[in-house]
């Protein structure tokens, strides 16, 4: 039931909204007012500059996710809401990792980075910064691999996602 005793799952929700001031705060405000948690959030303009796309990942049982989606649809500036998790989707996140590195460890870090197809974007006497793109598992794995060297800082974009195949998130009527 809606009070959420069911199985918790992670959901990736894509939202098309009017590209207007205040829209993001309406969405984040709805989550906080109803005590739903956002795990990750990413926003950007779409091919149509009047529309932005927001990707939210949240977890909860089916009833909670259903409520979240309904409450999102209720917001006036929200054009479309789709739960990508209901079908097959691809998702990516870009992460910058600054890790402690000196002459001794640099080589090993580079090796690991290569396995993950991470790029080195900055290097200094005592540190290296890597850029890595991937899904959740890959990001978690590389961060874990970097821990022994000393992770100094991590910056993440939040996840973005799309359906696999031809299906797109079109505007209604488009």
């Amino acid at each position, binding site marked *: *039931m809606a009070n959420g005793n069911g199985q918790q799952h992670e959901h990736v929700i894509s939202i098309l909204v009017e590209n207007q001031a205040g829209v993001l705060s309406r969405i984040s405000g709805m989550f906080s007012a109803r005590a739903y948690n956002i795990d990750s959030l990413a926003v950007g303009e779409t091919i149509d500059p009047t529309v932005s796309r927001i990707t939210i990942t949240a977890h909860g049982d089916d009833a909670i996710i259903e409520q979240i989606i309904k409450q999102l649809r*209720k917001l006036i500036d929200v054009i479309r809401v789709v739960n990508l998790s209901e079908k097959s989707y691809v998702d990516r996140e870009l992460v910058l990792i600054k890790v402690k590195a000196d002459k001794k460890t640099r080589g090993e870090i580079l090796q690991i980075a290569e396995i993950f197809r991470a790029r080195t974007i900055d290097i200094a006497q005592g540190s290296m910064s890597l850029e890595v793109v991937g899904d959740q598992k890959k990001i978690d794995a590389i961060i874990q691999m970097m821990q022994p060297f000393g992770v100094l800082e991590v910056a993440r974009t939040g996840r973005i996602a799309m359906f696999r195949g031809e299906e797109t998130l079109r505007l209604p009527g488009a």
Partner: protein
Amino acid sequence: MPKTANKPMTGAEIVVDALIREGVEVVFGYPGGAILDVFDRLNQTNKYKFILVRHEQAAGHAADGYARSSGRTGVAIVTSGPGATNIVTALATAYMDSVPMVVICGQVATNAIGNDAFQEADIVGITRPVTKHNFLVKDVAELPETIKKAFYIAATGRPGPVLIDLPKDVQKAKLENYQYPTSIDIRSYKPVEVGNTSQIKRAAQVIEQSKRPILYVGHGAVGSNAQAELVQLAERCEIPVTSTLLGLGAFPDTHPLALHMIGMHGTEYANLAMHEADVVIAVGARFDDRVTGDLNRFAPQRQHVIHIDIDPASISKVIEATVPIVGDCKLVLAELLKYVKACKHTEWLERVLGLKKNRPLHYGSDKKLRPQYVIDRLYHVLKGDAIVVTDVGQNQMWAAHYWQYTSPRTFISSGGLGTMGFGFPAAIGAQMANPGKRVVCICGDGGIQMNIQELATAAMNDIPVKVVILNNRYLGMVRQWQHHFYANNYSGVFLGRKHSNGKIDYIPDFVKLCDAYDLTGIHVEKREDVDAAIEKAMAIPKCVFLDFVVEPEEDVWPMIPAGKSVDDMICGLA
């Protein structure tokens, strides 16, 4: 669309023109620095009435009462900062109860926004969670469409309040070639009004196969004017009908199938019927916690829940619907009536109507002046012919219990937010919407004092609202809870002044207070004086306060304590 003006119009002029074009009859408001330009134009027409209130909160509640009693969108105009924050409670009240309202407030000039300017408040930020939508207008070119959108959003779908924040420079700015839009299309806002046919057919099937069906109607049924369809459905399929507090009037209380209000202070028979029902047909109701109590024990025998609501988010939010139908209650019911065949529920009706007969609402019938008696007499003396506006608390429950509501929009009350102080200003608004009708405000001595300043508004505009005060010198509902659940510890609830000899002063003296406003107050202490006092008050064509000094420690019965179920119902004194 003809050109509406050849010469450029200012933002302030556009506001006035738009209000006229939206058919606004009454504007409630209060001026201030940041809305001066609008006020400078506001009195340049007689196409609508302007009512100056004495506090912005009252402007909001008055617009709300106007809207609830008429079905038309209520309008209030206030200034920035404190003017705007004062109306927040009224917005939240209207939002919780889905009342169409448009509030326009002044704002500091756009170049001053964010500078902590004098009387600046981020009212769009503040009201975001308590409005259906809100707008900050930064460019006068956007103003005509914004106002059109505001009225459209407020009144369609699940209605609600919309706020327009209007900076002072936008009020002054001129717009060439002003045209007020005749229609509007918002791609991100398309309310669904017509129900899904296959779901409606399923609902018909479920009803036909039901053994113990119950209709549970709410404010949505009032809003969509679904009484005729409800009566037809109830009669055709022999379904008893219960109502939420705000649903009162959606189905006539005088109908044999009426089970009256359900919930915490609902009738025994309504609550027991819900407890035994196998099919619940919710029409424009949202299974509020004051209705359901403990969710795990609510309607435990239900096999099906048919839930009709204009708001998809209300369906399966609290109670899972087996037959969800998104749409306007009236339209969906009319469609349902095309499919549902007549059916008999003889045994079920016998059971339910037996409960209704044997376990009616009741109160002590001794010589004491009891609050229930006052409402009972009021109903009979007025022959039920009035719009009843209540405040919040015991007065609200007794007004729900001892008056028979037969038509929609005759019972007006703050249900969701439970806003004390709502009654009097909302009654003023209801009276403005219904000049020919009798409007009675039923309140306690606590709530009336929360917007008592509106005596001036009623007096100076000759608004003949009759205010019935059930004066028990207590914040009665809180006292009742303290009595039953807090070991009789009456903390912060006594409103009178007790002398050492036991004598109690009534503070304030409502008769003297009315006198100060050049109005009549009538003080009643005895049961036998009630009818005459009511008749006397009704004969006065102005606002009158009827101050009934009632039993101080009367409780509202029955009661299902918060979070409990029918099994825990306290039925009061025998």
